């Protein structure tokens, strides 16, 4: 059956219509492909690259911190950081929902964290961190769901590891994510971990190292297929501290054993190398290592005992009787008296028309300087204070390192305050009344000092007049082996007269080894020398007013010491917070000194025995000193009350 011509024509024309349509469509397709592949190719190449290439930051481990014997104090461990890759995430809300469920986290909390992160870090190629320091279990659960969650990354990150029991926490400080300022000023990335406190902060530039980067090929489910390029991170410099791990432990054990908080700074008086730096209570720096939880941070800040406060450098207290050492030094070096100068103590004396009491009711009788130090006779030092005047006391306080800052290489040190006439005129606009000097002479009044400066003072007394600068770093490994850090410049050098050194050392030796208040620090054959002191928390009238509040009004105790008496090798301070008596700090010093010698002589280190609860309290000549005539009548009941408080505390 042959198609009629009419049919042929119709078929031919309609086929031509179809043909034209097809050709037009194919031409249009060719143009589309030309636009995509030739005109816009750069844009799509970039998109394809960001699909399969991922740049991962390789965080540099921070430099290891070692103790003076080369034992590792602060190291790094691997932790897992879980984050969401913002570039490949299609639905952030959904991803957050699933991730929170898998990790067992609060979805709202995760959402808030991610949103805060994204606000702070606009660069989209930086993954938003969901969880730092994830547990192994969380990582395994996530790996099992990897196919559904290709945009969720698990990175192994070196994280700071500090010793247990918050050892030397305030010395090490802690690390944290760089703040806005640090990012701007230091040219750091927002994810950078920097030192925020302590050695971590001061030596951050050395410790930080340099982050590396890795450019990898990933497939559509986020699996790494290949590494295109890798820049290895450079580990931070190793830093050797002057700290002695054994002594540090001994001091902190001593505090725990004694049952009070406080601070200790113990150093080598010849060099200023810090052997022990302790502040109790402490925080656990490990809590900060992988980003601190807000609840932990809030708890630390709200804690009434203020564990974040470094009492060694940031606590300022009245030095009490330990200040008598300064007055004695000043009087001897100024040549006003010699060590045999005697004062008659009848239990009190009149100065500038007022009666000031000694703590011993019957008085010490006729007493020379050595015994005045031993017995802590107030009348003796009132007399020296009257002879010196406040400005000469200030001068010698400064020479001994007690006024101002010690210059230690740790952050946030506050200045110790020893008053003088110029200072008073400047701050209050009033002139100095000579009567005020009498209070200052026994470490009362406006004198407030940090434990660090008191340690500096006793070290200067111990070494015979050289005011060293305490420091905590011994050597740095810049990559070419250990390089010792040059000793910090000596702040001041005054060679004391030999008679001065002999009198001071004898008196301080007698405090511990004869009839003084430091007998609990006595170690046969070691000639420990020292002085106790009490820092009043509140004046006697204030105490009466504050009764009934929950403030802890118990006095602080001091014990400054060095050993041995001649050519001392160790010196420092024990601050017993609300410890009531300075002599209660002495056993801590004793334990540290015993450890020091045991180590030096290769004997087993001493261990603290269980507390002997039967130890009788000592009479404490440092207890509430008497300043005002009004208070004199009240003196008896106050000290009785404080005895009661102590007995309850024990």
């Amino acid at each position, binding site marked *: 059956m042959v198609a009629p011509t009419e049919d042929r024509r*119709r078929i031919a024309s309609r086929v031509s219509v179809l043909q034209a349509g097809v050709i037009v469509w194919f031409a249009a397709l060719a143009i589309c492909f030309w636009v995509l592949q030739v005109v816009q190719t750069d844009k799509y190449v970039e998109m394809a690259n960001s699909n399969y290439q991922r740049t991962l930051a390789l965080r540099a481990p921070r430099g290891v911190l070692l103790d003076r014997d080369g034992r590792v104090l602060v190291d790094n461990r691997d932790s897992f950081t879980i984050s969401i890759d913002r570039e490949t995430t299609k639905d952030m809300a959904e991803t957050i929902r699933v991730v929170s469920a898998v990790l067992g986290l609060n979805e709202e909390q995760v959402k808030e964290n991610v949103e805060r992160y994204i606000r702070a870090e606009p660069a989209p190629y930086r993954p938003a961190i969901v969880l730092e320091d994830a547990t192994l279990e969380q990582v395994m659960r996530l790996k099992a769901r990897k196919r559904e969650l290709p945009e969720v990354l698990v990175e192994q990150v070196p994280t700071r590891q500090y010793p247990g029991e918050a050892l030397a926490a305030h010395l090490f400080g802690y690390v944290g994510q760089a703040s806005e300022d640090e990012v701007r000023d230091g040219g750091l990335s927002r994810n950078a971990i920097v030192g925020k406190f302590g050695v971590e902060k001061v030596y951050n530039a050395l410790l930080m190292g340099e982050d590396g980067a890795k450019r990898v090929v990933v497939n559509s489910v986020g699996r790494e297929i290949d590494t295109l390029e890798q820049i290895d991170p450079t580990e931070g410099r190793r830093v050797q501290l002057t700290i002695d791990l054994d002594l540090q432990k001994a001091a902190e054990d001593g505090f725990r054993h004694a049952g009070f908080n406080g601070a200790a700074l113990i150093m080598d008086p010849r060099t200023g190398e810090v052997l022990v730096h302790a502040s109790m209570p402490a925080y656990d720096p490990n809590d900060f290592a992988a980003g601190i939880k807000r609840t932990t941070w809030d708890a630390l800040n709200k804690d009434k005992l203020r564990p974040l406060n470094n009492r060694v450098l940031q606590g300022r207290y009245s030095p009490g009787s330990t200040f008598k050492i300064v007055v004695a030094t000043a009087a001897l070096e100024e040549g006003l008296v010699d060590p045999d100068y005697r004062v008659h103590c009848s239990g009190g004396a009149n100065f500038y028309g007022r009666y000031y009491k000694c703590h011993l009711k019957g008085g010490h009788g006729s007493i020379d300087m050595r015994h005045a130090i031993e017995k802590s006779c107030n009348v003796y030092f009132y007399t020296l204070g009257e002879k010196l005047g406040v400005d000469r006391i200030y001068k010698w306080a400064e020479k001994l390192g007690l006024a101002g800052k010690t210059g230690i290489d740790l952050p946030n040190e506050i200045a110790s305050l020893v008053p003088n006439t110029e200072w008073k005129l400047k701050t209050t606009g009033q002139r100095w009344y000579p009567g005020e000097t009498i209070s200052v002479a026994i470490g009362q009044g406006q004198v407030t000092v940090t434990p660090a400066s008191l340690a500096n003072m006793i070290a200067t007394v111990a070494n015979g007049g050289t005011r060293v600068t305490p420091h905590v770093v011994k050597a740095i490994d810049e990559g070419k082996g250990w390089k010792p850090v040059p000793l910090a410049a000596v702040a001041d050098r005054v060679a004391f007269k030999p008679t001065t050194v002999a009198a001071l050392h004898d008196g301080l030796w007698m405090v511990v080894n004869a009839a003084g208040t430091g007998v609990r620090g006595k170690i046969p054959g070691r000639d420990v020398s020292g002085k106790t002191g009490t820092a009043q928390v509140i004046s006697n009238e204030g105490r009466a007013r504050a009764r009934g509040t929950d403030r802890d009004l118990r006095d602080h105790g001091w014990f400054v010491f060095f050993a041995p008496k001649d050519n001392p090798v160790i010196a420092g301070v024990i601050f017993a917070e609300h410890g009531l008596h300075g002599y209660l700090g002495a056993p801590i010093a004793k334990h540290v000194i015993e450890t020091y010698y045991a180590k030096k002589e290769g004997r087993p280190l001493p261990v603290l025995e269980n507390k002997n609860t039967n130890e009788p309290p000592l009479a404490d000549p440092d207890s509430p000193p008497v300043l005002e005539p009004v208070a004199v009548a009240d003196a008896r009941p106050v000290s009785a009350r404080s005895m009661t408080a102590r007995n309850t505390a024990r």
Partner: protein
Amino acid sequence: MFERRLYHHVDWAMVGAILTLCLIGLVQIYSATYTDNGPHANFYTQIWAILIGFIVLTLVLAFDYRSLADKSHFLYIAIVAALIGVLLFGVVRGGSRRWIDLGPMNLQPSEFAKATLALVLAKFFGEARRGTVARTDFLIATVITAVPLLLITQQPDLGTAVTLVPVRFAVVFVAGMSMRIFGILAVVAILAAPVAWKFALQDYQKERISTFINPSQDAKGAGYQQIQARITVGSGGPFGKGFREGTQGQLRFLPVAHNDFIFSACAEEHGFVGVVVALGLYLFVIVRSLEAARLAKDRAGSYLVLGVLASFTFQVVYTITMSAGLAPVKGLTLPLMSYGGSSMIATLAGFGLILNVRMRRFTN
């Protein structure tokens, strides 16, 4: 049956173009499915499909298309039966029931429905006494198309079902449907679109279309594929990234790179140059086929060519448009290139019919 002289009337140029497209597809499947342990099993399956396809093509050539068209009602009944069989006993994969298990391979009857429908419609309109077509003829043609179409919809496989529609319209169009009616139908279709949107389409289908208009609204599902397809094509650039060097296809950012999106993968690895070559080959095959329709000895021959070509062209055009991320994502294969045994064999059988018509243009 197969006289020697007919051998000289075979359109060898078109056979060559078809074979080249099959080989380009094969190379692309090799690249897209290659595993660390060598070529994937899909690669060998495709070789077999091409071989079987050409055997079937030869067989189809051996019989005069007129006698095939005469027997087409048997084929039609067989296909309808097979489609019903699929719904009852078919193999379920990915949520739809499209395959009959034949032991070593699965057969997808819906692929063969296209050529069968073309044969039946060619016979129906070819036998019409007058050159013009009555309204009842349109109705009958519509019913003939609707039966397999609805059966395929039930699998469900809307993509393949829709490819039957161009068969009916192409045949009717060339068979002489008046342009007026054509225009009316077009207007009705446009007016019906919102109604269909509201009642006929399933939610996931609506989503596909709205996603096409705004891919970022479903950046994880269909929108993701569309975006990735465009990135794949665009990043190929003028000359491509090279054989097995395409990051989008090799690293699986582009889904089903050996099947629905094979053209995107090809565009990535061989660039605009490769695209132009492939497009040219397809256009050549289509234009040569249209010529065969013009040259056909009788109306039935023309209608048969156009019926077969209509679904082929529709599928090629749609898939390539989609592979550039310019059409909503729909699970359709690219004939001759995509992986798939049934599709390959049915397509080659269809070209057997087209070659058949051209070859026998001088015979009585």
